[in-house]
């Protein structure tokens, strides 16, 4: 983890080259990319961002396979016997349970557990500014904790260095997925995803229904073998007639202990409104001597706790996987991810739009004046450049309005495009290092900071 919050601008990224012009032209022709394609966490996305899974999901196929194989064997080998000897409801109940288990499992695996998007550059800067009030020039990493009062109880909020924000209460950073997850329970390898606020109820219904399913299959198989051996044969013969039952017995026997145990444990957690994470860490156990430190989130009523956890309102996904990136942000991933050093930012980290930087650079590429840029020559070219730049301004607006999905939000959120005038000048400055040193204006900082619609992009290069 780097101590330095800001990285140096890479002059190469900002310099004009025919190659970058070509790449830029190519990328302009590409379809606008969706946000999931630049998501910084270690996740995999399917169905164009509709489904999300952890990158390490090796055991999910095993889980699915075990369930399907066991149930398949049950339906194929045990059910015919039991239907004729007992009742037709056995495969019906088995079928319903099986469907429920698979549906819950898939829901748990492919739902966003409550991932918090990473803080934008401005937010991160703002937080830093709030803590670093002494204004010293030497850089100090932000303190790691902040204490707040929740229901008259002191709770420590930790600062997440990856996501650049103070984690809300009950949020934890999953190292396997490299995301902060709200109400983080645990990362379940069997399910191939984190279990958090948004998919805890699916996880719980999965393990409960799985315990019913395994118990049901176990019971039916035992009944089956017993009935067979009662009809005049002994057990060995009965097993020989139906070898699949043994397989099912073994699988069910070993899974029942763990599944039932897990169900019981999670029922306890649900009833006391705790997460696995909190329980393991003992966050709310009274170990602080005389002071009673109970769970501040509990409603002190088992039924209320259960209802809130399992039947509470379903919060939306915060990471907006299927949203479109602003059109010109594609290139900025390389160039704009680097931020100027603090000394060059006398004012606060007033942000800048990636889009206007992009447009600025774009116009640099297209304008012929570009190659004539030199410290003394800039004043001459400035009015011409401005003329060139003012024309495409309307084009920018239409660009952003062309993306209908973002239209409503962009109108409120993203004031970028018409800012280009000021920012283009800054880009002119920043392209020429000599110029930069000569006039470090407050506006200078704007030419390189990234913000806005792509919080994810800023921090991806910092991952190691």
């Amino acid at each position, binding site marked *: 983890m780097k101590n330095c919050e800001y990285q140096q601008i890479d002059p190469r990224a900002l310099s004009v080259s025919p190659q970058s012009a070509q790449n830029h032209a190519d990328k302009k022709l590409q379809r606008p990319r969706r946000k999931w394609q630049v998501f910084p966490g270690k996740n995999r996305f399917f169905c164009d961002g509709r489904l999300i899974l952890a990158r390490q999901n090796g055991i999910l196929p095993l889980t699915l396979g075990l369930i399907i194989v066991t149930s398949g064997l049950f339906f194929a080998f045990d059910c015919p016997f039991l239907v004729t000897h007992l009742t037709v409801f056995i495969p019906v109940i088995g079928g319903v349970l099986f469907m429920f288990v698979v549906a819950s499992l898939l829901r748990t695996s492919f739902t966003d557990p409550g991932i918090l998007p990473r803080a934008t550059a401005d937010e991160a800067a703002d937080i830093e500014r709030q803590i670093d009030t002494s204004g010293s020039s030497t850089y100090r990493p932000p303190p790691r904790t902040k204490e707040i009062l*929740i229901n008259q109880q002191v709770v420590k909020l930790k600062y997440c260095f990856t996501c650049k924000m103070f984690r809300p209460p009950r949020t934890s950073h999953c190292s396997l997925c490299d995301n902060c997850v709200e109400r983080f329970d645990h990362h379940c390898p069997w399910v191939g995803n984190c279990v958090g606020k948004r998919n805890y109820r699916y996880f719980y219904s999965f393990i409960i229904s799985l315990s019913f399913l395994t118990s049901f299959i176990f019971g039916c198989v035992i009944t089956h073998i017993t009935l067979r051996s009662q009809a005049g044969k002994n057990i060995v013969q009965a097993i020989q007639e139906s070898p699949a039952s043994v397989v099912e017995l073994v699988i069910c026997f070993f899974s029942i202990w763990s599944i039932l145990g897990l169900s019981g444990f999670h029922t306890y957690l649900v009833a006391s409104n705790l997460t696995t994470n909190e329980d393991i860490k003992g966050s709310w156990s009274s170990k602080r001597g005389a002071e009673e430190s109970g769970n501040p*989130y509990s409603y002190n009523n088992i039924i209320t706790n259960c*209802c809130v956890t399992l039947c509470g*309102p379903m919060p939306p996904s915060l990471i907006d996987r299927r949203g479109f990136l602003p059109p010109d942000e594609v290139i900025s991933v390389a160039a704009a991810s680097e931020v100027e050093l603090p000394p060059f930012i006398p004012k606060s980290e007033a942000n800048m739009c990636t889009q206007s930087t992009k447009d600025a650079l774009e116009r640099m590429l297209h304008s012929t004046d570009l190659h004539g840029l030199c410290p003394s020559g800039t004043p001459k070219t400035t009015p011409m450049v401005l003329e060139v730049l003012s024309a495409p301004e309307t084009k920018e607006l239409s660009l952003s309005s062309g993306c209908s999905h973002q239209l409503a939000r962009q109108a*409120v959120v993203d*004031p970028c495009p018409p800012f280009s*005038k000021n920012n283009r*000048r800054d880009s002119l400055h920043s392209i020429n290092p000599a110029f930069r040193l000569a006039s470090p204006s407050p506006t200078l900082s704007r030419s390189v900071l990234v913000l806005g619609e792509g919080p994810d992009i800023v921090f991806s290069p910092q991952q190691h």
Partner: protein
Amino acid sequence: MGLIKDTFHNLQELRNSASLANKVFIQRDYSEGTTCKFQTKFPSELENRIERTLFEDTVKTLNNFYAEAEKIGGHSYLEGCLACVTAYLIFLCMETRYEKVLKKIAKYIQEQNEKIYAPRGLLITDPIERGMRVIEISIYEDRGSSGSSSGSSSVSGSTAR
């Protein structure tokens, strides 16, 4: 759509005459637990830009909206149980209560921006765009002239160098 065009037009005027100076972040208030609630403390940067009461009203209304979305009661339990029984397939045709309230919030913020904040050179970003962590308020400064003429702003900008 008309609403969006109007907002765009107003914001366009704002942008033509102003430049982004600063951003203020209203953090979450966790005193009541993990429910979504924002601090109503008036930030000092907005001291000269907007009346305290207007700001507090906006934040309090937003807090009420979020409280409504996250309210646990008969309606949410019914929704939860119905969803469970239908194996959550019901969400393919019906949107959750939370989503409905989020739409109301988006509309409200747009309205507030148009009527109150944009005329004062401010702009509120919907918290959902920032992962419900903060309410981001962008502060714009009028550049040179008091009017909103795009011609003068470029001249004043170049002389500001």
